[in-house]
């Protein structure tokens, strides 16, 4: 580890231990433009010589330590997978993009039929691609979030207060995601997106344990569902809102999450075998999420390089899918559909 920045003792030891287990090097870098969640650029995903953890420049103390700890756990999982078997991620192909976009389109048509003010076709096309990409990103990141957080919580008691602040903030930011599109995107996808985050936050609220993390306490739109009788909830207009539906779907996703994560001994000593087992559980849990959300043919498990190549060809895949769906109705689909 090469760094001139102060690091608290438990984190310094944890970074060293991670390097030793994986026989690799980790560089820590401050960057004013870094994502608030920090970024892990690792040797198991990219063709680089050493791992880099980037974090915002204004994180000088324990917030920085927490970001480093969480990325170290993720690095251990990736590294263990690469060393013990294969490290795979959810990637996509021309065919899977078509399946995903086509399904979103069908759901959008159903929703649009009920609307008085229809979405212009160009916006609809744009939305198909954005939604698909969004779910690809989420399915690659979200399942690992409760895993890395639970491990950090159990192994780093010194930074629990920091973790709580950070997770409350993260919960709010993630729940705000897609808010501006609520009236545009098909209800089903808005609900599934919120349901995944709801399940994660609910799981972490139980794990830490911290009621403040419960979405019905931390998220303004969900506060009204706290302490309500089932009968009351079923007989009011709330049952028809997307936020209530997010809670219902979220509770099921939480059950799936718990089914897999309860098998993990969070206090076990770190080893390649331990993290490999976690990786395998994470993959099975991800597959279960995908299946529950009826997205089985949307993604394919492939090495990270496959995903990078697929991202480079995304415009082409999207154009092909749109051509198949709309035929000659659209001539130049790529003009607007690449932002996402």
């Amino acid at each position, binding site marked *: 580890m090469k760094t001139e920045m102060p690091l608290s003792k438990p984190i310094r030891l944890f970074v060293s231990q991670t390097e030793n287990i994986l026989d690799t090097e980790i560089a820590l870098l401050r960057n004013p433009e870094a994502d608030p969640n920090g970024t892990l650029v690792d040797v198991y995903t990219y063709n680089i010589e050493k791992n880099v953890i980037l974090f915002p420049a204004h*994180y*000088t*103390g324990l*917030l920085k330590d927490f970001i480093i700890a969480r990325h170290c756990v993720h690095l251990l999982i990736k590294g263990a997978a690469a060393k013990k078997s294969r490290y795979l991620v959810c990637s996509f192909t021309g065919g899977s993009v078509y399946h995903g976009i086509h399904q979103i389109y069908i759901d959008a048509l159903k929703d649009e039929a009920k609307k008085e003010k229809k979405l212009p076709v160009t916006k609809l096309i744009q939305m198909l691609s954005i939604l698909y990409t969004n779910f690809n990103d989420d399915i690659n990141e979200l399942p690992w979030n409760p895993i890395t957080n639970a491990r950090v919580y159990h192994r780093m008691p010194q930074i629990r207060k920091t973790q709580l602040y950070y997770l409350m903030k993260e919960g709010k930011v993630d729940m705000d995601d897609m808010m501006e599109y609520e009236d545009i995107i098909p209800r089903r996808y808005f609900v599934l997106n919120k349901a995944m985050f709801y399940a994660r936050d609910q799981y972490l609220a139980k794990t830490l344990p911290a009621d403040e993390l419960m979405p019905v306490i931390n998220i303004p739109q969900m506060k009204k569902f706290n302490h309500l009788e089932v009968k009351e909830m079923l007989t009011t207009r709330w049952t028809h809102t997307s936020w209530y539906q997010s809670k219902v779907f979220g509770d099921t996703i939480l059950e799936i999450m718990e089914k897999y994560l309860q098998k993990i001994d969070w206090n076990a000593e770190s080893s390649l075998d331990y993290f490999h087992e976690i990786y395998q559980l994470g993959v099975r849990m991800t597959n279960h999420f995908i299946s529950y959300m009826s997205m089985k043919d949307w993604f394919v498990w492939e090495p990270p390089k496959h995903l990078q190549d697929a991202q480079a060809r995304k415009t082409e895949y999207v154009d092909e899918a749109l051509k198949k769906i709309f035929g000659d109705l659209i001539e130049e689909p790529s003009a607007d559909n690449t932002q996402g």
Partner: protein
Amino acid sequence: MTVKEAEELIRKGRAYASRTKYKEAIAYYERALALDPDNPSGWYHRAAVFIETGRNTEALADCERAISLNQNYSDAWSKKGHALYNLERYEESVVACTRALALNGNDASAWYIKGVCLDELGRNIEAQEAYGKSLELEIILDMEAEKKKIGR
């Protein structure tokens, strides 16, 4: 005039340092110090860049020079604490951070370095207190940064 010129050179040096262009930053600071060696800010900022580039002994010397010019320069005391931490002189670092915090109790970084050093010295209860204070301030800074982002 030289004082103003030196300030301007320091400002340019800081702009380079913020973009991690340390070589250029040091060159500007050195020009500033040649013009006005009694400017504690020049020494302090050069120390900051020395720390970023692993030149901790030189950083310590620059901090001491800055402090000798202004005993109440809290940032210089804090940076001295950082340099001493990197040199694994934890006891002295705690003293420097304590002095920095007496001058400016809202220095999150000084609280954190103090906590780290106390932890290294096995003074865990004191370390936790310092970490707690550091986190409190870091959260305030983080919230301010978020507000700025929203206002942008």
